[in-house]
């Protein structure tokens, strides 16, 4: 088989921009370079038309209407706008927000900031698969609750949340529901109507579009959601997000959404096939490999495994021609292992031993086969030099050892 190295298996971090997306964007740099806010000449009209078309393409992918799409610089901005915008607008109604501990920092940190400003935030725990229980959300609600923010799917472990059930609950209680759907949009079917979503964040570069562009869906009726803007200026995007629209990025996002909508059924089926092939291949050849996240309720292309007795960064070094990521502390600046894995009750040791494989549109079966072989070879090699593996083989229960922590 012919393989081009290095292999990219980090599609939960970012995706390659689809060449069809790039092609659609190019004319908007040089030919149709107008400002979409220029109402008085054809350059502006062209740009505005392109933006409106993209707005519809984005909306169609999530069952919304174009008028409900606000373009932002990316999902971090969308999350900030949704959470801070709702908090500020609805402060008189209440000051309580419910979220969960496995959210992305783009949700956690705005919530932390609001807490410093006097809001109360409940961070719910998750089960061993990383799923939040809608009943826990119901139990946490008070008369002061204004917003629930639960991600559609987790970026590390790929677990998909019971979004429709949460949406239904929020609707029945009259509480707004925001979901950070960065990992879900374009990968799994999303429908803001059927799922009862009031605000939804998405990002271009996670779905084969360009970086630097995202969107926030803001429900227009039943109920009409209002937001206080974070960025003030020319009043673009119905006053919710000022700033000249990056037309070429928006065109790219629109085409990326359309491609995802058209190709999702075949693509997700193919990716589930690759994911399961990789999982079964690795687990069939190695003992003590653990799946992190939900076995079935997970993103098609995401596989997160812990390889007992082997440290994640050490393993990544052995497969350095394959781009993956690890929950190991050593790969982060903080030297703390993944807070998401810790939230599942995965021990610190197994968190250090985790590898995330992110397959995507451009991943081939040959690449998956190559990865499988490399992982099996390296894990065996590293276990042969692991004192933990040796102790386990001797029947020593590692949890009873007095470690000299440093």
């Amino acid at each position, binding site marked *: 088989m012919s393989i081009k190295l290095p292999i990219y298996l980090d599609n939960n971090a970012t995706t390659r921009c689809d060449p069809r997306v790039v092609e659609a964007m190019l004319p908007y740099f040089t030919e149709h370079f107008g400002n979409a806010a220029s109402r008085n000449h054809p350059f502006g009209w062209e740009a505005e038309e392109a933006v409106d078309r993209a707005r519809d393409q984005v909306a169609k992918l999530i069952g919304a209407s174009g008028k409900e799409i606000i373009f932002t610089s990316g999902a971090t901005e969308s999350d900030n706008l949704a959470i801070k915008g709702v908090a500020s607008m609805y402060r008189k109604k209440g000051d309580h927000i419910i979220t969960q501990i496995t959210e992305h920092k783009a949700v956690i940190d705005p919530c932390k900031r609001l807490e410093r400003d006097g809001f109360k935030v409940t961070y719910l725990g998750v089960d061993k698969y990383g799923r939040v229980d809608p009943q826990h959300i119901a139990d946490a609600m008070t008369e002061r609750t204004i917003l629930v923010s639960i991600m559609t799917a987790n970026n590390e472990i790929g677990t998909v949340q019971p979004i429709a059930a949460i949406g239904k609950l929020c609707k029945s209680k009259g509480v707004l529901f925001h979901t950070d759907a960065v990992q879900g949009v374009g990968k799994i079917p999303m429908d803001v109507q059927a799922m009862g979503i009031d605000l939804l964040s998405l990002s271009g570069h996670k779905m084969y579009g360009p970086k630097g562009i995202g969107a926030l869906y803001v429900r227009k009726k039943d109920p009409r959601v209002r937001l206080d803007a974070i960025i003030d200026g020319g009043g673009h995007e119905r006053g919710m997000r000022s700033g000249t629209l990056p037309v070429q990025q928006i065109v790219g996002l629109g085409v990326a959404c359309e491609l995802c909508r058209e190709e999702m059924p075949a693509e997700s089926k193919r990716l589930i096939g690759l994911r399961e092939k990789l999982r079964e291949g690795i687990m069939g050849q190695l003992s003590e490999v653990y799946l992190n996240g939900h076995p079935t309720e997970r993103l098609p292309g995401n596989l997160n495994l812990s390889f007992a007795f082997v440290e994640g960064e050490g393993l990544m070094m052995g497969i350095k021609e394959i781009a993956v990521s690890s929950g190991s*502390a050593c790969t982060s600046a903080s030297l703390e292992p993944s807070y998401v894995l810790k939230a599942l009750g995965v021990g610190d040791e197994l968190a250090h031993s985790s590898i995330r494989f992110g397959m995507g549109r451009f991943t081939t079966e040959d690449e998956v086969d190559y990865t499988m072989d490399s992982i099996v070879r390296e894990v065996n090699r590293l276990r042969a030099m692991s004192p933990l593996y040796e102790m386990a083989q001797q029947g020593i229960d590692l949890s009873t050892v007095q470690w*000299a922590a440093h």
Partner: protein
Amino acid sequence: MAYSNKVLDHYSNPRNVGSFDQKDRTVGTGLVGAPECGDVLKLQIKVDPVTGRIEDARFKTFGCGSAIASSSLATEWLRGKSIDEALAIKNTSIVEELSLPPVKVHCSVLAEDAIKAAIRNYQEKQTADEKETVSV
């Protein structure tokens, strides 16, 4: 993060991986670190009873590439050294030899700790032996 060529070399071709019999009285074993911290290093020395020099060393490491390289290098340096010479090995020399970045300095500290722990274990065994001899 880019690794130095020396780290890559020790990682790909680790020297002296393995284990000695822990019960052997000429063997000293040091086990440092903790799985929940992401590094565990087992380092063993085997001392020639006649010359008092370290005739061989072995390691097993659970950790990142730098931790593996630090332990591999430590075993290389230990061979042929007297106990006093071995005790003089400093983590900073390991940092220098492997060009470890600041975030990986703790790997070298761990290697120095493991050397000291192995020597301490060896010395305890010798003292225990002396006591036994006296009591006989």
